[in-house]
């Protein structure tokens, strides 16, 4: 929790709880298709559906309680129009991290096509530009960070990464070094 976060909006919390409750209930209802009760040879305590069933029942119940509490609170003190506007903005704000996760997915894809060093360098610098860390000093820090990560994980700890087709263009000796270290 960061120090500059505002307290959660009640309507936003209601939406979140309702979503959790719906998911929990859907999973509970999907039990007959998602698993089976099992053969009769073992006792009732070995049934495959027992543990997920108990866990999902607990999850559904807990979410029902939080949902009930949120609804009671809103009934006792109805939300103001401002609260509604803030709730809408906040719920849309849930999508903000999706943008960064999309960059992360591209980064994962790029490793297989550009290699760890180039992909990491591009990812770090791209992300820094996106969050407005644009001064030459910051960008140099980004480049040094990428090099440090390669030095620590690829060279130091020998973490394996897939070799991109790009490395095949290099002469044999260089290609081996690129695959091994970068």
């Amino acid at each position, binding site marked *: *929790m*960061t*120090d*500059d*976060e505002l307290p*959660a909006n009640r309507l*936003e919390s209601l939406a*979140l709880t309702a979503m959790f409750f719906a998911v*929990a209930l859907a*999973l509970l209802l999907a039990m007959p298709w*998602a*698993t*089976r009760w*099992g*053969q009769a040879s*073992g*006792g*009732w*305590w*070995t049934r*495959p*559906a027992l*543990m*997920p069933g108990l*866990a999902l029942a*607990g*999850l559904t119940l*807990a*979410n029902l*309680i*939080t949902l009930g*509490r949120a609804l009671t609170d809103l009934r006792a003190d109805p939300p103001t129009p401002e609260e509604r506007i803030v709730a809408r903005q906040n719920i849309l*704000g*849930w999508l*903000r*991290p*999706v943008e*960064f*996760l999309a960059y*992360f*997915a591209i*980064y*994962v894809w790029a*490793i297989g096509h550009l290699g760890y060093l180039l992909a990491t360098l591009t990812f*770090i610098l791209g*992300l*820094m530009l996106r*969050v*407005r*860390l644009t001064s030459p000093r*910051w960008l140099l*820090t*980004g480049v040094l*960070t*990428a090099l440090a*990560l390669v030095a620590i*994980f690829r060279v130091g*700890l020998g973490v*394996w*990464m897939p070799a991109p087709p790009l490395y095949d263009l290099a002469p044999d000796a260089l290609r081996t070094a690129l695959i091994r270290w970068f």
Partner: protein
Amino acid sequence: MEFLLTGLAQLADPTVFFVMVFGAILGVVVGAIPGAGAAVTISILLPTTFSMDPLTGMTLLLGVYCGAAYGSAIPAVLINTPGSPVAVLTAMEAKPFADRGEARRAMSLAYSSSFVGGICAVLALMLLTRPLAQVARHFGSAEFAMLALAALVLVIIGHGGRRIEALAALCFGLFLATVGVETAYATQRFSFGFQPLMSGIPLVPLVIGLFAMSEALVQLTARSHSKPPVQLSGRFFSGFTEVFRYPRTLFGSSLVGILIGIMPGVGEFLAQQVNYVWARKLSPEGHLFGKGAPEGIIVSEATNNAVPPAALIPMLALGIPGEELTAMMLAVFLVHNVVPGPQLFIERPEFVAGLYWTLLVMNFVIIGFLMLATKWIAKAALVDKRFLGVVILTLSLIGTYASNYSLSDCGIAMVFGLLGYILRSHRWPLTPILLGLVMGPILEGRMRQALGGSNGDPSIFVTRPISAAMVAALALLIIFTIRGARKARRRPRKDWQINDS
């Protein structure tokens, strides 16, 4: 004695010693950076420790764990922002010190009480773990099942102010633990024929997603406004001896920290609350608590640092992790086929004793490093949050990918990263999800064994004396908690009293 000496020999290994120093320093630095911290760092380092031998891997993670507990006091004093949630009380108490130009005194108070708390807890670990493991040798499946259940109940009770949310998170974790092909009937459970889920939800991507990626997303999307740092004014060494003017608070906090740390699933947050409330009641200077009382810092830091070694006691002796970080460390054991519990002391005594000594020496390394380098570490506390987010997100990939070399793991980490982000922004606790995932198979396995032994008769849990005592204690605990919660409903909780882990 011979048992302890075998551990000392382990410390003579230069690799273990180097890793211990590295882990401790890394822990202090990341502990000093609000938003980084032990959970993020350990989750990222976890896969890299799989290639090390168990002692070296555990030493690295424990170095980060203990170092971060010390380091979190630095931003608490310097920018009035706790380096980790457990330094909230330190931040609250240290602010008046900084306002009075005594920031260095506050820091030295924090360091020395951390040191005393840490050393006391390591000594408790050395003294208590083996006898507890010897007692646990007489436990059957019913007792282990009840222990696992007790840990899960304590996880919920420990989340004061967020208990229903903790219950939901725990049940979600328990559900996740069941995903995949189950062993008794080779039946698929919620994997829907999807190949990457057949072997279950992998621990490392879940941990990295929930704890590291979600933190990175919080940092990247947060509105950035940095707090001006406090000047490091005042005398540095005054607090080192001052803590011993409050022996009851210092050693009492350490002791309670150890006792609560031993209880699986509770963690330092509840230990701090209990200690803080009692120290305020018992101290003649109780009226100064919250206004810059030295005892306030002592309580917070001694407790905070007593918990990590104490949390290892149930994990080593019983195989039950105490909180999220020991749950992550359990993965290191399992990867190396080292099974924590009573048998560990028979099969790998040198490993256990080695852990004791590294933890003991680590406290001296950390305090020495802090005395020399506080001025420079303090700068780490001021790192730009956006840059921190960029670094954590970049490291998340290598952490996720290196564990299994599987791209689907990256996808799982992304899903849990988004979930963790949403849960964090609503102060839903994350720790119970992890504990549910780790404890779920233990609970299910032990329950099956116990009920199998009694041919399905559940009275097995109340007819065996130790198990029956645990059932009674749990029932009483639940009754008292419900009663306490009803009374507390009339009094709104302060922010530091809400444990959203």
